[in-house]
Every structure is written in C-alpha cells, then in structure tokens.
C-alpha cells in the first residue's frame, strides 16, 4: 500500500463527497466571474474607458455648445456617467458573458456541480457589484480631479445606493432576458446596440430635460430612470421616489419575463 497523495503519483480517490457552504460557493463564483470580466479587453473598455471618455468629452463639449444645464457640467454629468457605467456592466457585459457561457456549456457544466442556480445568480450579482465598485472608484477619482463637487449627506448616499442597486437589478434582469433568448452572437450585437442607443438617446448622461418633448418619455426608460435617480441623489442630495419605483418596475417585469424564458443551455 502507498500513502495517499504522495509524490509517487499515486492519488487517493476515496470518495468524500459534499458541497461547500453556499456562501463560499457564491464567493468563489463571484470572484471567478469578476476576474474574467476584468481580464477581457472589450469588457474593460466598456466598463471604464468609455465612461471616462464620455465624462471628459461631455464636460469639454458642454463648455462650447452651451447646453441648458441646471448646474456645472461636471456636477451634472458625473452622476450620469456613473449610471452609464452601471448600465454597461449590469446590462451589456452581463448579457454578453452569459450568452457565451450558454454557448460554451459553462452553465451546463456548473449545473452538475454543487453550485445551485440560486448560487450562480448570486455569484453573478456579486461579480457585478465588485466590478461596479471598481468603476465607481475610478470614475469618481477622475471626476473629482476635474473638480466634481457632489452633494453629500444621507439623502445623497441613500439615493445613490438605491439607484445603483435597483438600476443593477433592472438592467441585469433585462440583460439575462436577452442572453437567455438569443444566440451568443446575436446577444453580443443586440447588447452593444441597445447600450449605444440608450447612451445616445436614453437620458443616461444627459438629463431628460435636454431631450425636449421626448423628455417625458425617456425618463420612463430604465436608462432615464437610473440617470435621473443618480442626478437627484448626487446633484440635489435627495432620494427620487418616482425614478426608483420605475427601476423597480423594470426589475420586476424583467425578472418575471426572464424566469419564464431563460434557457440554461
């Protein structure tokens, strides 16, 4: 007999099955998924580089074009750019990553591991939160460097946190809806297209009031609601009930539809 696990190449195969505790599985999944997201060049571009470019560009442009803003350009645009960053991660990145996970059989493979579906979802949410935290740190640092003077206090903090949370929930549900219904390449195309359309016309970075008569419509979009809630929190320091309820509504509708249509394989 040889000792198990010794260096002579004899391995101990004796069964000792069991799943790790749920939280440890979720932590493992979240850390894995966030690492993969940050390793991917295109996703990093989407997560950090584009928002920073948009921020710098919008502030520079506003000085020339003379937009009718209710405050300093940097103060109005930074909350919107943070909203854009949340949208890029929780919608576009999540949809693309999940689409390819289905295609490559990752979800199927994990489906036979001890990780339950609840753990997989929680892991994805954890990864989104980790990446979003990183985005907030980078974008805020750039904005502060450009003279950003955000509102502070309880209303700002609560309003901002709720906006990020509900915005993530709404966009993640919609992203999964897309990824669960389409093939990976179609998901990739659609997720990027929707992102671009919402960035330009969805009242994320620019306030809904800048869209003239369309403003009344776009503020009901998840992008407009998220941007509005962020601006209310970080410009005026208040919680925006209507915008937050709008996000909650999108989250509920998205979740119900996703639960009905999502195919794991």
């Amino acid at each position: 007999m040889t000792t198990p696990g010794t260096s002579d190449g004899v391995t101990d195969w004796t069964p000792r099955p069991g799943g790790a505790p749920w939280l440890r599985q979720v932590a493992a999944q979240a850390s894995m998924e966030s690492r993969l997201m940050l390793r991917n060049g295109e996703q990093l571009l989407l997560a950090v580089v584009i928002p920073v470019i948009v921020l710098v560009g919008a502030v520079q442009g506003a000085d020339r074009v003379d937009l009718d803003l209710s405050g300093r350009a940097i103060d109005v645009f930074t909350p919107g750019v943070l909203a854009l960053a949340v949208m890029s991660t929780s919608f576009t990145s999540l949809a693309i990553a999940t689409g390819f996970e289905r295609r490559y059989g990752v979800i199927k493979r994990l489906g036979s591991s001890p990780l339950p579906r609840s753990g997989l979802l929680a892991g994805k949410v954890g990864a989104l939160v980790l990446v979003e935290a990183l985005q907030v740190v980078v974008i805020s640092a750039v904005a502060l460097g450009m003279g950003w003077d955000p509102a502070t206090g309880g209303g700002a903090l609560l309003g901002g946190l709720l906006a990020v949370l509900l915005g993530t929930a709404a966009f993640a549900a919609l992203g999964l809806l897309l990824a669960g219904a389409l093939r990976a390449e179609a998901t990739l195309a659609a997720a990027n297209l929707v992102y671009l359309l919402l960035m330009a016309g969805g009242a994320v970075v620019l306030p809904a009031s800048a869209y003239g008569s369309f403003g009344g419509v776009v503020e009901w979009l998840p992008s407009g609601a998220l941007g509005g809630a962020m601006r209310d929190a970080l410009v005026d320091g208040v919680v925006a009930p209507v915008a937050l309820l709008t996000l909650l509504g999108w989250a509920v509708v998205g979740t119900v539809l996703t639960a009905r249509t999502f195919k794991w394989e």
Partner: protein
Amino acid sequence: MSDAAPAVAVDGLVMRYGDKVAVDELSLTVDRGTITAVLGPNGAGKTTTLETCEGYRRPQRGSVRVLGLDPVAQRTELLPRIGVMLQGSGAWSGVRAMEMLRHVARLHAHPMDADGLADRLGLGECGRTPYRRLSGGQQQRLGLAMALVGRPEIVFVDEPTAGMDPQSRRTTWELLGEVRAAGVTVVLTTHYMDEAERLADQIHIIDHGRLIASGSPVQLTRGGTAATIRLVVSRPFPPGAPDSLRLALGDLIEVTLLDEVSLLVTGPADATTLAKVSGWCEEQGVLPESLTLGQRTLEDVFLELTGRELQP
C-alpha cells in the same frame, strides 16, 4: 435506505425529441464500485440516458434513480455526490486551465488537491494556458479532472477518450481503474469496443435507444466454441448471398452480412467450415480479399446484434 440502492437504476425510460425516439423503454442497473460501460453507436441514446441520470433531463416516461435519489427532484442532495464529465467544453474560453479546476474544487467541501490531480492527469504544463488554447486532448483531461476533483461517489463520463492519442487513452484507462479500486463507481459511454472490453466490469449495449445486451465482457463474447470467420470480398456479394451461404453451412452456424462486401460467420470455426466458406466463394464466383479467423470480440457481438436488427 439509499445506501442499499444500486448506483444507477434506470427503469422503462422513454425519451423523445419531437418525432424521434432517443431512448425506448430502456432499463438497466449499475452496481456500485464497478466500471460500467454504456456502449453503442452515435445516436444510440447514450448521452440522453446519461444526462437523465445527471438531472439535466426529466424522464418523459419511466424512472431513473442515482444512489437511490431522483436526479431532478432531489438534485441538490445528489449533485455534490456525483462527478460529471460532459462531451465537449464546459469552461469559459478565457479561463486558465488550473484556474478552472481550482474553481470547481472550491465548490466542494472536501476537494482533492487540484495541483496533484492536474499533475496526475498530465496537465501540469498547461496550467496557465487559456482554455481555448488547450488541445482537444488537454480539454478532455481537464474535463475528467473537473469530474473527479470533488471526490464523488459516482462519476459519469461521456466519451472520455474521444480525441485522445493512444498514450493518453491508456493513461485515462489506468486512472479510471484506480478510481474504481478506491470504491468510486464509474459510468462511461463509449463507442469504442476496445475501451469497453478493456475497462468495463459490466457492459450495456444500446442501439436505437434500446438495450440489446448486457453482461461482463467475458459473458458477452462467450458463445461456446464461437469463433468467427470474417470474409471480405473484392466486389459486392450477389443477391441472396447470406442465405445461400447459410444453406451451405448448416444450422449450427450463423451468417451475418456486415455490409455489401463483408460478412461474419459465427460458430465452430473449424477446417470444415473454412473449406465450405471457400467452396461457396468459388461457387458464387466471388473473390475473397481476406478471410480472417478469430475469437469473438465485442465488436463481433455488437455487429451481430445490430446486424440482425438491420435485416429482420
């Protein structure tokens, strides 16, 4: 209770995809501590059966129990106890090989040492290689490592050596033998006869979703003096060839047409039979290209069984 249950019990399983019947009233048992091969051609229903055991598919009719548990209803209880190697990838394209293996290990309570396991499977050198750059054989071995790393009681492996070079195949066979010796039940699908014959304690042969034979390799290849003569000719046999040969050889001998230029004669393969076969060739005006004598192999058994199926 479930400890007395067999590793796998499939009873009257029926699975359809649209009009196509993939699994047709299949019943089979896998005893604990064995290597059991589910052998059959592509499309025979092996993967569907395996995926039903793994809880991916709900039986449309009949029942499936693994370790006495229902793979769908008792999924959370069952999954930590089984290991699964899927056919084809199952990993992120950008994940590094060792990163993937460590991740799966972390989902388990008492995983094996991932580095040791990787070394054992010859994955030591490609640990930092992204999954998409691994060779087919490396991906297969990583898949096997992921199936084993959680120390399962049963491991389901779907075509484990497909696409491996002969050296890797032998290593994999050795390893599965060791795994069994430690008390792990191995259920594998394969369409390689030699794999089933070399490795398995028990073989279930499946064709068109039905079980057509079960037994140990010895039981399956035994058949009295049953040796075989395999006849291959240069041009297709004339019509009615198997019948006329059967007539010439007598009742004790079976003739199975394998394809249009080869047939299998099973029975007492003595000099008389051989002489009769070559006499028949002369009579029919066919030129034998090869005439091989041999013990019955699993391949012969399989071809006989499916051959009969093809010409009822």
